[in-house]
């Protein structure tokens, strides 16, 4: 059984069919890439999986549980973390506080324990901090720990967002264009991290990405979307050779059309 199974998912915005009958299977332990031209519905699919949109029909099943109509704040508790295409960080908080928020849903201490700072709340803080430091070490964020997000360069902000998602201890992580806006060095680091997330942390990755070099390097399987429908899936090579994918990116081959 796949870890995440999306079946016949459809989402409309007024007259626009953002997603039509999308099927997608993400196996446990793989890195799965979603590609497609702008407006193909990749982010819409992410928003449907993470509970921000309600699809009109179809379902998303995670670990055998239907999550199609689950509220967005309950999704991470089931084990799905996500990042955003346009950064959604807590801009006026420090890097440390941002990542600590990833531990929010793991908190056990009650309101009164926290208000009086009893030992339970204290231990919870230390435990959360210990876990957060592991993530900071993993992504080499040590120099930025006490910096406010708004003062950091874009690449580092993206990295913090990834760290925050990892701090949730998810089983599946959804990365929405993780390499967008990164320079080539940062992109290389990102590729290594995604490999490590898969190999060492054993977290399944579903990512949207336009940078085909990244996709080729990290993805085990690729699904291509165009105008809200799946047009191809398979290994990166297979999908890139697929005539429908080439057509979606490059348009109709006039020569071929004329000779046909």
């Amino acid at each position, binding site marked *: 059984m796949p870890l995440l199974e999306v079946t016949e998912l459809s989402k409309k915005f007024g007259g626009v069919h953002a997603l039509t009958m999308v099927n997608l299977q993400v196996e446990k332990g793989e890195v799965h890439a979603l590609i497609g031209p702008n407006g193909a519905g990749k982010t819409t699919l992410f928003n449907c999986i993470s509970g921000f949109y309600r699809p009109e029909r179809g379902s998303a099943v995670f670990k055998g549980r239907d999550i199609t109509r689950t509220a967005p704040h309950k999704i991470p508790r089931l084990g799905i973390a996500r990042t955003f295409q346009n950064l959604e960080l*807590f801009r006026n908080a420090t890097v440390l506080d941002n990542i600590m*928020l990833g531990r929010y849903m793991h908190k056990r201490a009650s309101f009164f324990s926290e208000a009086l700072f009893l030992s339970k709340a204290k231990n919870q803080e230390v435990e959360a901090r210990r876990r957060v430091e592991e993530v900071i070490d993993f992504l080499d964020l040590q120099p930025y720990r006490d910096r406010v997000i708004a*003062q950091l360069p874009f690449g580092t902000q993206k990295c913090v967002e990834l760290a925050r998602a990892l701090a949730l201890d998810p089983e599946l992580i959804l990365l929405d264009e993780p390499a967008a806006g990164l320079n080539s060095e940062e992109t290389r680091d990102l590729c290594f991290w995604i490999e490590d997330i898969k190999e060492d942390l054993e977290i399944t990755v579903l990512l949207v990405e336009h940078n085909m070099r990244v996709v080729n390097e990290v993805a085990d399987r690729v699904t291509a979307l165009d105008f809200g429908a799946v047009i191809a899936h398979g290994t990166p090579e297979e999908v890139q050779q697929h005539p429908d994918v080439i057509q979606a990116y490059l348009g109709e081959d006039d020569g071929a059309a004329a000779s046909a």
Partner: protein
Amino acid sequence: MKFKLKKSYMEDLKLFEYKSDMVGYGVLLVFLFIFPSWAGNYWTYNLTLAGIYCIAALGLNILTGYTGMISLGHAAFFAIGAYTVGYMTTILGHSFWIALPLAGFAAAFVGLSLVLPALRLSGIYLAIVTMGFGFIIDQVILEWPEVTGGANGLLINRPTLGPLSLNSDASYYYVVLVMVILFVLLTKNIVRTSMGRAFVAVRDSEVAAQSMGIPLAKVKTQAFTISGFYAGIAGGLFAPLINFIGPDNFTIIESINLIVMIIVGGLASIHGSIFGAIFITLLSEFIRVGKDALPAFLSQQVGFQGAVYGLIIMLFILFEPMGIYGRYLKIKYLFQVFPLYRKDTFRRERKFQKAQRTR
């Protein structure tokens, strides 16, 4: 500059990072404890009042500064606290010590019931709803004389503590001082644990907060209820201090007063709430006394105090958006790095703050 080698995560959770902080706060505490003995009744009374506003400002800062929800009706929570104490002690004859926590809980409960319809609102719309709530409570006070004394108001005596009478300004000052210390510690605990971080998360990005597993409705309700509790306790302490409460004490000007305190003091900061409360309390006293020195057309002008507040808010937002606390941090920094401080040291931050305001 001070550097400290930290060897455990526990050290980051300490109340005082450096020994010198502890000495500093210790000196402050001693100063506050001996204050009534040399300052005289007038200043003791004013500092007590400032202390009460500290509690209310801390509560409002949790709501507005940390969670980003604006309340223009906080005087209503203050009034609920004051009238709960007034009703319980003067009309029902219960002890002040039972009435005070009840004042907090009553205001918290009303906050809870107000937040349910207000949950879907934010920004200016929430401000309008809370303002309307303030007017409603104003009317209730006037039209419910069995409980509130109506337009005649209520007389409230200072409480006693066992055999001890707290009738003098100095003795009541200590009651308020202890309460302020307790509430500062409570606020500190709230903002340094996951609860406070969730408030900040909701303020900065609701979408990201949800994707961290933070239930927006619950966190906003929490912020509103806690904030109401603070204002209720502050109101409960306020009533016996001034001995008489009437509808005039809890108008919209009082709500704006609290907003001014946290903006001038510094949003999302405990120090800021305290600086702001003291500054504005002393300022309004200063305006009251100093007005006589001004020409009649100014001092007799209706809304003179409001105009001064408006001017102060404008100046702070333009020149020191982080409030008195921001200035305090800069002065502290100046001493820490002493010969190295340059005029432009904080230019980037200031530019950033100004740019942020358009968002």
